[in-house]
């Protein structure tokens, strides 16, 4: 491996080769050790100064592509995850995940596809008020978080998805959401309320969220 084996194209001098090998092993170890994705910046800080993190990661990715554990990229981070095709063989018998309510599942999809989206907009799309605990559960799962406030009257809070959301669903970016381009092309990602009379709370888009909330109790 290292050393001047005196053959084949070595543009690199032996020292560089060794350094590169060490960086690769270090990357492997860092990513392996962590349960959560690591971003390139964090990884870069641990490598030899000036190392091309991206290129090294790509190399690892290729190496692991056919194996039982793959190196994948979600959001800003990289992580090792078991290969998807092995899922049926790995799946735990006990249904671990607590069942999410239909409301929670739909709400998550709406936030993912329409983000940033206010609660009033979510309600306009679903046609019902969001029950307490729905956003709470999604936030507790680490899938959503508050985004910026909308600069409209009442400055309602918006909701967006997190990097962990991408990690959980194995998405590299939000552009990889299933069918997102088709939906956008079909104009179905318009989150404005359309009708009066539907989804009561959805109408208060322009109003401070206080109003909807208070009536909740």
């Amino acid at each position, binding site marked *: 491996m290292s050393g001047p084996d005196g053959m084949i194209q070595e543009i690199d001098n032996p020292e560089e080769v060794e350094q590169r090998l060490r960086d690769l092993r270090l990357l492997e170890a*860092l990513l*392996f*050790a*962590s*349960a*959560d994705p*690591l971003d390139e910046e*964090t990884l870069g800080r*641990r490598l030899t100064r000036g190392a091309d993190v991206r290129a090294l990661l790509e190399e690892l990715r290729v190496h692991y592509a056919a194996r039982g554990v793959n190196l994948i990229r979600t959001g800003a981070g990289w*992580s*090792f*995850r*078991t*290969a*998807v095709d092995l*899922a049926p063989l*790995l*799946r*735990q018998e006990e249904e*671990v*995940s607590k069942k999410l309510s*239909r*409301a929670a*599942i*739909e709400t*998550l*999809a*709406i936030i*993912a*596809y329409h983000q940033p989206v206010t609660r009033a907009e979510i309600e306009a*799309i*679903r*046609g*019902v008020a969001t029950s307490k605990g729905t956003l709470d559960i999604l*936030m*507790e799962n*680490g899938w959503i*978080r*508050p985004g910026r406030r909308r600069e409209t009257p009442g400055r309602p809070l918006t909701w967006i998805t997190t990097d962990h959301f991408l*990690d*959980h*669903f*194995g*998405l590299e970016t939000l552009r990889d*959401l*299933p*069918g*997102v381009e088709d*939906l956008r092309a*079909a104009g*179905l990602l*318009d989150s404005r309320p*359309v*009708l*009066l*009379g*539907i*989804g*009561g709370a959805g109408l208060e888009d322009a109003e401070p969220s206080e109003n909807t909330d208070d009536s909740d*109790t």
Partner: protein
Amino acid sequence: MVGRKPPDHKDEGAEAVSPAEQLVLVLDGFEGPLDMLLALGREQKVDLTKISILQLADQYLAFIAEARKVRLELAADYLVMAAWLAYLKSRLLIPEVEDEEPSGEDMAAALAFQLQRLEAMKGAAAQLFARPQLGVDRFARGAPEDLDILRKSVFQVTLYDLLKAYGEHKKRQEGGVLHIEPVRLYSLEDAVRRLSELLGRMPDWATLSSFLPDGVRGGLLTRSALAAHFAATLELAKAGRVELRQDGAFSPIYVRRASRRHEQGDEE
């Protein structure tokens, strides 16, 4: 607006339960009126873009009518939707007049869009959750080695923790000043007044439940109304103004005006 049924109807829900229960079951499956409209729309078995809104409105209104017939308590938004659809229907059926209101077609198109959008989101949700999920189909390192790679700051506190802490703090704070919501109950005084008014118009035996005010079926308010009215009948019977009859334990209670009519009321 009282709309009392002729007396002596076994309307105390003894028989009527099954359709009501069915409707409750049906309703239970929906996340609100729009969700229900979407389900009805799917029954038309056409592309949602070609859906007949008029037909859909009819289906919905029929469902609501059925629900009300069996005296099913409907959430307000179902009724709002019904009213809106009835209005839409009239707009669609009556030739358009020139005014600033959106045309019936526009409204129908807007509704169709909303149904498509909701359908799209349901589809997206299904697709999303069909993906291999972390911890279910794909797995992270089971024995992560603690390398303190990420921790710029040593403490692990998430935004969720922060918000939760503040929420709990606020909760405790509000807990200090206990806000008790006003309890809406039917008062005995109201029941006596109401019964006294109604009695004059009641020729023969009528069930107590037929005296209950309309539109408060189900829930605490109804139970309190029933209790108040029952107490009121006792009060009035004591005063000699009504007679009561019950054919057996738990069977309906019947009320009628007392035959010997010495209307000198309050002797208490």
